[in-house]
């Protein structure tokens, strides 16, 4: 063979380990700093699994675990059943108004979780306008948890699924058509297999998000116990960090399973875009499009109804007894210095998180998808990236305190800084964007890399000339995702914020605690509006980029 060995490129060898260390410092180490307490006694000595046995003996564990598992499964099934066709509408059809639909689907992500919770209470609570729709069931309990959870995970599922569905190879469809496969057969044999990996990711993420969420069961869960509320009671109510850590470990289990499934799925995933790929052209099938349009409209109305109700609630004098409208709840935000500073802090936090997060996710997703670096490092990186989604914010935040607020830690100086809050927020929301990038890149054929190698372009060069441009729209979405989550995040930050760095999402919680519900709703609405503004920028940029990238259009 006369082929010369390709010059080894330092990027592929150096960057993965550095990235692994960086990500481990912001995720695994802090989380570990808390979870290790599951195996320690109150005096800090090693006690093995004693805490687990103690927790197992606690009454209610089995019920809480069953509630967590079953409610998460039901919510995931419903959310997937709604999100899949919705994502399909967004990226595989030419139905009018897709931009609007996309924005509406993202709405639940833009609003602090309190807002939809209030919206649901106003709609389905004991004074709710649509109370009858629950057929006599109370909102407060399993019904409320499932309803609110579906609403909460829907945008996450739509994002992952639409990333997975957005590219395919038009030639597969031409071939299927030539073989006389009807639209349904084409859907089952071409579309479904091509987005299997995205569907598995979306379902795992949805399940884990519901499983670890504390906010929803605490507002509409009634007395239904779940593991995520148990951890709150143990840590916050009883100051029992050791037992809290035990629950934290239990909450990680679904993520371990999801990691295994993800690993298997990645192994079997074949490239969907090859060097000869032709971009998908949305088909027009009048009947299908009409049904899907109706479906998307109904989902959009449901989302707008819940959010709209909450906005209405922020404008009335006193729900439900005095429904005269006014802006009295909004005044405080613009007259109180502290509240205004909280808004500014949130914007800085969100922009910082979007920039740092997008950079890191682009790198880690690229390494995983393009199989750079040593296999062990890569698997470690994937594990680290998959972990944060499985960790309740409370655990992550406490872990940050234990890890960084330790004089022995060289990074101790970060304690109390906005930089630490940004790192924590990046870590907290790392998994979904990481998967979005991996999904996007996995669809590229390995052949492209081989071609690059033949041309003696190193990984960095390939990234700049091919992966970067392919990834650009997804990276814009990733930045948007980090931004809006940073605007609304609460649970991880309750131990980290200071007087100077208190973000708006915490200010909302402070208002609720002070029984200023009207003002809290108004503040939450302002946060949502700012996030919507960012989302509009995101959608516009995405649109411009895709239009500028001529190669995405079929040239034939």
């Amino acid at each position, binding site marked *: 063979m006369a082929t010369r060995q390709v010059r080894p490129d330092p990027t592929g060898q150096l960057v993965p380990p550095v990235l692994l260390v960086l990500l481990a410092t912001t995720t695994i180490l802090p989380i570990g700093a808390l979870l290790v307490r599951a195996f320690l006694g109150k005096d800090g000595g090693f006690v093995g699994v004693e805490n687990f046995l103690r927790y197992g003996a606690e009454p209610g564990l089995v019920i809480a675990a069953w509630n967590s598992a079953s409610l998460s499964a039901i919510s995931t099934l419903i959310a997937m059943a709604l999100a899949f066709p919705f994502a399909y509408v967004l990226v595989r059809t030419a139905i009018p108004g897709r931009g609007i639909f996309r924005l509406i689907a993202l709405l639940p992500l833009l609003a602090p979780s309190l807002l939809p919770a209030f919206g649901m209470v106003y709609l389905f609570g004991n004074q709710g306008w649509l109370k009858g729709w629950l057929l006599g069931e109370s909102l407060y309990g399993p019904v409320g948890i499932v309803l609110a959870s579906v609403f909460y995970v829907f945008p996450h599922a739509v994002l992952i699924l639409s990333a997975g569905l957005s590219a395919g190879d038009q030639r597969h469809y031409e071939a299927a058509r030539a073989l006389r496969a009807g639209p349904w057969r084409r859907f089952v044999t071409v579309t479904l297999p091509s987005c299997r990996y995205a569907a598995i990711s979306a379902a795992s993420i949805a399940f884990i998000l519901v499983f670890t969420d504390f906010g929803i069961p605490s507002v509409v869960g009634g007395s239904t116990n779940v593991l995520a509320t148990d951890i709150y009671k143990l840590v916050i109510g009883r100051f029992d960090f050791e037992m809290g850590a035990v629950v934290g470990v239990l909450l990680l289990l679904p993520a371990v399973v999801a990691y295994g499934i993800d690993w298997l799925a990645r192994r079997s995933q074949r490239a969907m875009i090859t060097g000869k790929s032709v971009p998908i052209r949305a088909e027009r099938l009048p009947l299908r499009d009409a049904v899907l349009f109706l479906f998307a409209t109904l989902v959009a109305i449901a989302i707008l109804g819940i959010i709209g109700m909450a906005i209405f609630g922020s404008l009335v004098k006193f729900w439900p007894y005095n429904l005269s409208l006014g802006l009295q709840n909004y005044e405080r935000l613009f007259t109180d210095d502290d509240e205004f500073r909280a808004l500014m802090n949130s914007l800085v936090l969100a922009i910082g998180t979007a920039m740092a997060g997008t950079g890191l996710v682009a790198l880690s997703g690229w390494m995983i998808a393009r199989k750079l670096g040593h296999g062990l490092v890569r698997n470690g990186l994937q594990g680290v990236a998959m972990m944060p989604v499985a960790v309740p914010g409370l655990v992550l935040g406490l872990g940050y305190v234990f890890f960084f607020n330790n004089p022995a830690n060289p990074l101790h100086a970060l304690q109390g800084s906005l930089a630490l809050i940004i790192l924590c927020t990046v870590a907290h929301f790392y998994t979904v964007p990481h998967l979005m990038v991996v999904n996007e890149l996995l669809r590229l054929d390995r052949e492209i890399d081989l071609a690059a190698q033949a041309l003696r372009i190193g990984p960095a060069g390939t*990234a700049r000339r091919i992966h970067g441009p392919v990834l650009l729209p997804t990276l814009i979405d990733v930045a948007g995702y980090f931004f809006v989550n940073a605007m609304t995040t609460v649970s991880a930050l309750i131990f980290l914020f200071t007087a100077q760095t208190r973000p708006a999402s915490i200010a909302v919680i402070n208002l609720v605690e002070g029984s200023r519900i009207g003002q809290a709703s108004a503040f939450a609405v302002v946060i949502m509006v700012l996030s919507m503004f960012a989302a509009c920028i995101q959608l516009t940029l995405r649109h411009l980029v895709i239009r500028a990238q001529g190669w995405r259009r079929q040239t034939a």
Partner: protein
Amino acid sequence: MLKPILAATIAALLPFAPVGAEAQQRTLTVYSSLDEDQAKALIKGFEAKHPQIKVNAILGSTAPIIARVIAEAASPQADIIMGNAVSALMAADARGLLIPYKPAHFDKISPVMRDSRAEPVWVGIDAWASSICFNTVEAAKKNIPAPKTWADLANPVYKGHITMPSPLSSGTALLAVNGWLTIFGEKGGWDFMDKLHENVSKYGHSGSAPCRQAGSGETIIGISYATPGVKAINEGAPIQIILPSEGLGWEIEAAAIVKGARNLADAKAMADWISSREAAEISAKYLPITAYDDIQVLPKNYPADEKAKLLKMDFAKLASSRDAVMAEWQKRYGVKVPPKN
């Protein structure tokens, strides 16, 4: 593609790196669970007296603030806790996280409102008591009578119409439960709660939520404390605050200095200010019971007889039985799913 991203990441993080040298003004870090307006008014009063000290306040609920202090034990960030439930402060004290200090005006404070130990750790600011928020409009629709006593709440007529916080996550619930154990005795108290459990539709996490839920008609009766009820009434909620005749479980909100405070002298100055009559007069605008017995101001729409109805409670005993009460509560009511309405 790598370099620009890395550069952008680093550039994005740089402005947020912690600044080493603070300005000339000294700073004092205060953790507080007092009502937000009350805490801000007290801080403003302090800063007026000590213009060279800038107070950085972190406000939050009772339990999360103490959990944060415990979590930060390795390198304490707070100088002083200005207002937290004494029972929660005791949890921090038991872990050795607070230091004793006898503030300047300690001796003038009403004896119940200060730490009775030889080396006092806490000094009282105000007190709050359990109460019932009762929605008169929804009750009238369902023809439900107003309860007059705690014992009334065991009446099946209230089935499905009562919400209360869980004592596992709310200090407010704990003081109600402690009140019942004081009124009805150990056995009688749990018997009462067994019957009450049949009527409760929801045990929540927040101490103020039951009054808010009563205010918006989500429940008819909320077992909570007066302040959120007063706020709801002032906003126009059709609720009545009922102080049951048997008496009220109550608790003190107090200040204590954190061990390892970076700014001990200023923390002491804050404790001195908190113990002053002037500070108590500020607190009296928010809660009627303060550290000075003779200050008698009633916030608008606040029930007048709260002070008269406070139970005589053994706080030392309650602090030591805290874990046992929680465990018993969890055993009895934490597992069973309460009946549907």
